[in-house]
């Protein structure tokens, strides 16, 4: 859809808020491209023109940046991006099997969107959740410790129009456009939802507490204390 005058006016106000964050306006480009996706669902030609006009760049300069980054989509994205981590660790732990299951189930491959426009399936790179492998990301929210069955249940729900709840994230997964608006730097009020840390993140914290292990006492200066030997001097 072409950007109407109303929409352009609203986006311009948002863009100016973004630009104010930075000493140099061009730094606003990545957030503005996220903003374009929050409206258009992808980096549309109108969106490129809008960024170029607002930042005094050429459309070619904007397109050159947009195409560098995998989160910026060249075609209309589904309402939900389902990203299966298939980097080595997740792939080996089961990510490859999960991806194959979803590919078959959805009838679409990497970077393809289902006919109903609900789901864009992707292979994603390591998403910094390796201790929860295999990991699936839905609109960049964490779904930890997945199996082919649990991943299929997620896409079934999404296609049935039901909400899905990330393992570590907001109370539910928001749409691609809504998530894109957050990535443009506009907080949506969901930051206090969800857990602080999942079970894997807490393994060391809880083990130390059970064992009574603590960091050295600051008063003790350089004397090794309490079971903490100075490595390399023993």
């Amino acid at each position, binding site marked *: 859809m072409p950007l109407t005058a109303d929409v352009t006016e609203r986006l311009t106000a948002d863009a100016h808020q973004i630009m104010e964050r930075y000493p140099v306006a061009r730094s606003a480009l990545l957030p503005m491209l996220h903003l374009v996706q929050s409206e258009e669902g992808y980096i549309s030609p109108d969106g490129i023109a809008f960024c170029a006009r607002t930042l005094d760049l050429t459309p070619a300069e904007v397109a050159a940046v947009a195409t560098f980054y995998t989160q910026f989509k060249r075609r209309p994205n589904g309402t939900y991006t389902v*990203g299966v981590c298939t980097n080595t660790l997740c792939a080996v732990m089961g990510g490859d099997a999960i991806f194959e299951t979803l590919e078959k189930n959805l009838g679409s491959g990497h970077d393809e969107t289902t006919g109903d426009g609900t789901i864009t399936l992707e292979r994603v790179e390591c998403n910094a959740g390796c201790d929860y492998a295999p990991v699936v990301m839905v609109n960049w929210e964490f779904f930890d410790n997945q199996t082919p069955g649990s991943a299929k249940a997620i896409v079934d729900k999404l296609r049935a129009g039901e909400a899905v709840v990330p393992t570590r994230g907001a109370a539910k997964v928001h749409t691609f456009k809504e998530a894109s608006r957050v990535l443009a730097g506009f907080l949506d009020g969901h930051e206090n939802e969800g857990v602080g840390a999942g079970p894997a993140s807490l393994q*060391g914290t809880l083990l130390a507490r059970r064992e009574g292990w603590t960091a050295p006492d600051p008063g003790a200066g350089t004397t090794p204390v309490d079971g903490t030997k100075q490595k390399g001097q023993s």
Partner: protein
Amino acid sequence: MTTTLTPILTAFWDEPHSWSRKTYERNGGYEALRKALAMPAADVLAAVKDSGLRGRGGAGFPTGLKWSFLPKPDGGPRYLVVNADESEPGTCKDIPLLMASPQTLIEGAIITSYAIGCHKAFIYLRGEVVHVYRRLLGAVAEAKAAGYLGENILGSGFDLDIVVHAGAGAYICGEETALLDSLEGRRGQPRLKPPFPAVAGLYARPTVVNNVESIASVPSIVGRGAGWFKSMGTDRSSGFGIFSLSGHVNRPGQYEAPLGITLRELLAMAGGIRRGHELKFWTPGGSSTPIFTGKHLDVPLDFESVGAAGSMLGTRALQIFDDTTCVVRAVLRWTEFYKHESCGKCTPCREGTYWLAQVLKRLEAGQGSEEDLAKLLDICDNILGRAFCALGDGATSPITSSIQHFRDEYLAHLAQGGCPFDPSRSTLFEEAFA
């Protein structure tokens, strides 16, 4: 006596609303900031220098020394940029820290900015973690409301504003100069060094770029003292760090310990390798660090010892694979990652990673010949030390190290005309296939 865990950054991650300012303050948060603001900035810098803290983002450069490279103030702006791009395969410590306790990073960023004379700091967060971005935006707002950010912080006369910026999916943007280009609204491609960021960084102004965990460690150093920090770890690798265990271990997760702990000790804490299997290979610090095997269980995980044993401490991302895992498959997948993420700026990496993936694919399928191993090593030789940035160097690590330790397994693929392993046996849900 064995090494024990030292929860500092991870100490209260299990408290309700661990991310809130209140929880942080209840656990001593922002006391170090008050102490720092009462000290001359030079003394704060000196404390970090004396602590021996080395960068936690992979390269291990001494943090205080990096700060001291900034030229004398000339009246113009200077910047702190926190690197929260965390994308090195296996690395998963900064993201849980930011999710559970973003205030620790905010306090560290304020103290660091005070020490280096910065009034506008940036946190560059990878874009693929929406909820972490929410938490960081919320943390900045909470800190501002409490007077820890903004003008005249806690009546000290010091002003600081922090902007949290989301990237858009590109591993190379973790490389500090590519990150700066990306933050300036460009394609994320590395810059020629020198000039180093300390001299000409963001907007060509003096800039300090540090990893999340480096900056998050600063409040503890200022609050409890450089001597306290040095009482942990080894002489040249002082202090503590978060060790991230993933893969075929019974209790994968985050374990905060003094540098110099061994994998054997960590595995004991994590319940060992999964039942019925043995350790086969592991990365000490992410996919860009040469792999280790069972022979390296007792290598102290500090910068010097890991280096002497032929790898790098990197980001302490311990990815652990048991005997069901095909090393050729693992290495091919990492290589495809480097090929995908190569920014294309320099020929050795752009072309080299492409050819490495082609040759490995052939080998994994049991085609090709033994000469392909020599070819792989030859291509690696042409990348290592000739690439424009460390991404290219890193791409060679899994290949050269796996050929060194597992040459026979490559040959077994050729002998069998295919992969001798059943991938379903390495998954964590092998029952589902039974």
